[in-house]
């Protein structure tokens, strides 16, 4: 496995974040060895720089902020600032992050926001600050402002997958499924091989299909199922993918077995949509998802090697879904 210090800690579980932040002080101490204490003219001959070093600093900074260890976080930020200067885009973003997380109430947060706007007035091309601004707006509950900020950003930088997926999240929060799906499609266009985004698209499609009826529902549901299939094609053991596959195939089986007539009208060749899948294939996929979910739950519960990377909450949810299925059969 890769060095945990070098991986961006944004998606890691709380346990890993704590683990990381506890390593922080040892790491910082290890950086001040005799090598960096060499006097000036001789220090020109020795290089202690590496990209990994600064990546580690940044990751530790983020982990410490998450776990509330503000002092260590500040120390990391100091070294980063000393190295890259105050005006660096990324440093500005990190500094903002620090101020945001140490802000105690909304008025202090508003203060930070004002600072961001001040920076952006001078130079609107600092994308890290623009993103931070959108994030602050969101956390202050000003969702529509955050949406405007992000749409502006995306008009100027339409290849930013991070911003697109954040916008999708916001739209989902507001209940505008169609816009959310559009944003997710943009993300997938930028990163075609990211299985998690494929599955995420499937999730939103599934949610939006719940609101509809008849042929439209069938269409969205089958597309959602296909998204999950694609996600699994890209990543064999993706728990969320199997979970979604089981969920969608369950629903599809219900729909396909009850309303045979609506099936015809939905495959409209003019629009170029795919025909709904055959009931046979759906059944097989359902079986596949069920057996794979059972396998994952069983193996990760017994803690087998290579199967212990799943998050606990997801395993529990998967078990619950499986139990729901078996109860139905017993009835």
């Amino acid at each position, binding site marked *: 496995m890769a060095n945990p210090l070098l991986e961006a800690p944004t998606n890691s579980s709380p346990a890993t974040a704590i683990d990381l932040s506890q390593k922080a002080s040892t790491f910082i101490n290890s950086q001040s060895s005799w090598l960096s204490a060499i006097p000036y003219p001789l220090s*020109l*001959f*020795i*290089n202690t*720089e*590496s990209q990994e070093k600064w990546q580690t600093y940044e990751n530790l900074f983020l982990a410490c902020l998450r776990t509330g260890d503000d002092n260590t976080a500040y120390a990391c930020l100091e070294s980063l600032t000393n190295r890259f200067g105050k005006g660096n885009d990324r440093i500005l973003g990190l500094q903002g992050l620090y101020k945001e997380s140490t802000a105690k109430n909304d008025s202090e947060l508003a203060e930070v926001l004002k600072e961001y706007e001040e920076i952006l007035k001078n*130079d*609107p*091309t600092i994308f890290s600050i623009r993103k931070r601004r959108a994030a602050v707006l969101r956390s202050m509950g000003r969702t529509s402002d955050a949406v405007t900020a992000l749409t502006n950003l995306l*008009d*100027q*930088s*339409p*290849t*930013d997958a991070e911003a697109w997926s954040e916008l999708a999240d916001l739209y989902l929060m507001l209940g505008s499924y169609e816009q959310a799906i*559009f944003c997710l*499609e943009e993300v*997938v*266009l*930028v990163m*075609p091989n990211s299985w998690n985004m494929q599955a995420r698209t499937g999730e939103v499609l599934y949610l939006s299909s719940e609101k509809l009826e008849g042929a439209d529902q069938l269409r969205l549901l089958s*597309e959602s*199922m*296909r*998204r999950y*299939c*694609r996600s*699994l*094609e890209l990543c*064999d053991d993706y728990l969320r993918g199997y979970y979604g596959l089981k969920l969608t195939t369950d629903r599809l089986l219900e729909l396909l077995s009850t309303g045979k007539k609506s099936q015809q009208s939905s495959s409209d060749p003019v*629009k*170029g*949509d*795919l025909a709904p*899948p055959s009931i046979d*294939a*759906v059944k*097989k*996929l359902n079986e*596949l998802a069920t*057996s*794979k979910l059972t*396998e994952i739950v069983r193996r990760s519960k017994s803690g087998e090697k290579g199967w212990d990377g799943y998050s606990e909450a997801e395993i529990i949810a998967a078990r619950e879904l499986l139990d729901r299925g078996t109860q139905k059969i017993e009835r």
Partner: protein
Amino acid sequence: MAGAAEQQIHRDPALFYWILLPITVVMVLTGILRHYLSTLLQTAPKRLPLPKIREQRSLLRSANLRMNYAQISPAAFQKRREWWIESARDGKFLADPDARGKGKPNPMSDPAMMEGMMGMMKGNVAMMVPQSLIMGWINAFFSGYVIMKLPFPLTPQFKQMLQAGVGTRDLDVRWVSSLSWYFLTLFGLQPVYNFILGSNNAANQVTQQMAQSQVNPMGGAEDPEKIFNAEAENLEVVEHYYILDGVEDRLLERLQGTV
């Protein structure tokens, strides 16, 4: 020259201490000097103005759409394609809509372009000056004799490389002249610099020159409108297929054996 009897040349051991070693040390030191010089001379890349960023990234978006179109449904693709082509034709993405139709801008008139060229000049000077100085130094002091013998035999083709500045035809190829030693160190010290200065150093001029030859300083000044029109045409001819078409069968085929 039958080659049976090995050539014996008696060298003064002082050659080693006063020529071989100094040349090597000087070469290493110049490499380090060059590294720091080019770091000092480097100008920070200039920030692009916002409209320019938008222009570039819009173009990139279309390229993404053109390459990864299979990921989205035909309807979604059609919608995006029509919107993009129309906007591109109207010049909505252009950084400078007023300059449409004026043709290729002159690179000399653009101050940003001039700055880029200046930066390149500075880099070149930092490379060339120490190199020519040292070569002159070696030529003036140490040319015309051999300073070391390689411990392994070589074919005569290496004669040119190893015995520059020594005009003896019958000399065994294993003898290396001082000028050749200079060239060997010039091209072969990269690992040493990597060890001393870290892997992304600017000490070796050969790698520098290779990096430079890839970017044509004049090439960036294409008329943006033409690029957008070409991109729109490329996008127009894309024939769409959907990657989700038949994905369930593919997945079943692949995974059914494993469970």
